[in-house]
């Protein structure tokens, strides 16, 4: 456990998570995962096998001194460090996550570096932090030159994807997704809440949260990584049906159905386990998403659809070609 964070209370927590399929023919086992995620010699990779195979790299820090994105165009310079780490789930889905917390205000002048390094993952504004505009700025994306945690997550992803353990033979085509999140303090006494989950562009999602002030940044990033993982699973499995024309007779031997759906069965269907690594206090933020749009409901329908398609293939095309009675 890291020591409790000291210093002024957190006014805003932000981050971005990139999620992609690990480009390797075989999923990494726990030993390889540890080797893959050993970003630092001085800190160990966190490993756990229940309820899913999970490996988390140590944090890396990136020093920043640049304006924060702000929806109202305000220029707020901020200095500090952004923390980033990577997570591998079941040796198959790779996520990189960058995040920072910011206090409500900081000194008007930049301080010596050593003082920023005391609190890793904290970015201090010079002066007051306009937290609402900055939260919106982070979610909508800033201007060029503004602090972009997505780039830090992407740089870590690029670094990991060059790792010699990867043979660059993913079992299926898939698209990486990005999930940006911002957490503002909840009113005193209130519990955490999920204000909004949006699917912005094709592969961009944004999450806006309210959390009690003492919630650790790690736990919030963990919740968001859990949302990002399951959103990516849904998105990817929905798309496995792209390009196969079901029920047209064009695919008589069923080989294209098998080719498209087989990898999803081999590599993805067993990964669905929402809330598995979320603290109990934050786990209930899943509830509204399960209510509507209903993540697990859609997932179950997809899994049934895939199994039905494969069952139809198993029956064989000959028996299915029964002429409908007039």
């Amino acid at each position, binding site marked *: 456990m890291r020591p409790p964070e000291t210093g002024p209370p957190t006014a805003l927590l932000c981050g971005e998570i990139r999620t*992609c*399929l690990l*480009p390797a023919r075989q999923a990494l086992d726990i030993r390889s995962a540890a080797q893959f995620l050993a970003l630092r010699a001085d800190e160990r990779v966190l490993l756990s096998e229940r309820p899913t195979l999970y490996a988390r790299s140590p944090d890396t820090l990136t020093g920043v001194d640049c304006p924060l994105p702000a929806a109202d165009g305000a220029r707020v310079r901020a200095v500090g460090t952004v923390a980033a780490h990577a997570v591998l789930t079941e040796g198959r889905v790779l996520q990189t996550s960058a995040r920072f917390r910011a206090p409500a205000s900081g000194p008007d002048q930049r301080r010596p570096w050593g003082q920023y390094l005391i609190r890793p993952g904290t970015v201090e504004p010079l002066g007051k932090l306009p937290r609402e505009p900055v939260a919106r700025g982070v979610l909508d994306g800033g201007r060029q030159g503004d602090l972009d945690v997505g*780039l830090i997550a*992407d*740089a870590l992803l*690029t670094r990991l*994807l*060059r790792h010699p353990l990867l*043979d*660059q*033979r*993913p079992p299926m*085509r*898939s*698209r*990486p997704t990005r999930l940006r999140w911002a957490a503002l303090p909840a009113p005193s006494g209130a519990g955490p809440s999920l204000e909004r989950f949006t699917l912005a562009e*094709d592969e961009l999602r944004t999450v806006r949260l309210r959390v009690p002030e003492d919630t650790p940044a790690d736990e919030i990033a963990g919740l968001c990584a859990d949302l990002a993982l399951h959103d990516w699973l849904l998105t990817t499995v929905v798309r496995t049906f*792209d*390009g196969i*024309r079901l029920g047209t007779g064009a695919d008589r031997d069923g080989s294209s159905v098998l080719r498209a759906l087989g990898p999803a069965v081999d590599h993805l269907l067993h990964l669905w386990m929402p809330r598995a690594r979320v603290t109990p206090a934050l786990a209930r933020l899943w509830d509204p998403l399960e209510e509507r749009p209903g993540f697990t409901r859609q997932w179950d329908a997809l899994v049934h659809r895939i199994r039905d398609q494969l069952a139809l293939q198993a029956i064989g095309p000959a028996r299915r070609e029964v002429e409908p009675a007039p």
Partner: protein
Amino acid sequence: MLVFAASDKGGTGRSVTSANLAYQRALTGDHVAYVDFDFGSPTAAAVFDVPGALRGTEEPGLHSYLEGEAPEPARIDVWRQTEHPQLRTRPNQSGRLVLFPGDAGGGEFATGADALERCVDLLLRIDNEFDVTLVDLSAGRSYAVDMVLAATAHPRMRYVPCRWLVFHRWTRQHVIAASGLVHTDHGILRGGVERGHDEETLRASIRFVRAAVPDPESPLWAQGSPAQAAWMQACDEALRRLAAEHRIGDSVVLGIVPLEPILQWREQLITEEDVLSTQIANKETLEALEEIARRLTDDAHWGQP
């Protein structure tokens, strides 16, 4: 699968034909990327009718990305951003069609080790996401050609299937030049071997596309005199012999795109509507493009010549 489009000379229809191949593959349901490595003169934005990218995007293009100035290159969703009236309504069951534009005024540049690593990163990421990726390369033995020869020989790319299309027009000079681009001492084959490719494997992955070929039988020439017809036949015969002598004969030709008047006027995508309803394009052109697009992934056309 990565498909590299090369040509020895400009004006061979390389960009416009490969853009049409990308379009045809997307129509069949594949997710397709079109990567504009024609650094001297990026033209793909014009062919796909995406005007934002024509004026040079706000976002960084491939050139900035490879030079390390931008962490990610811009992408343009063609169905969504095109101003081509028939492309605006994305056809049912079509795949994605994404253009990675070059920077306006990019120009050629020397490839360093960093640019090469970034090129490998990019090609791998795109290949992991798209079914077919067409990479349009600057004409000649350009930096673009050298860079992708080095990138595809990189150990990280050893399992990525790569194919090459060399475009040329159907004239003496173009036939000789296209053969030279592949087979001479300064050609793609020798350049590839120097960068670690296996010569036979690389040779087997190269096919030629004859573009803007006048078909003597076509109604376009029906008005000509018998003397003209006989002359064209004789030329065609002579060119076939020349091509065979230069090792780019029929056995290594993936397809032939007939001379298409509208492509002489304007670089554009040929749609079904152009053939069926407005009838400004010839049916044979569309059929040729559809067939070449299909053959890109048909192994029967990629055996050892």
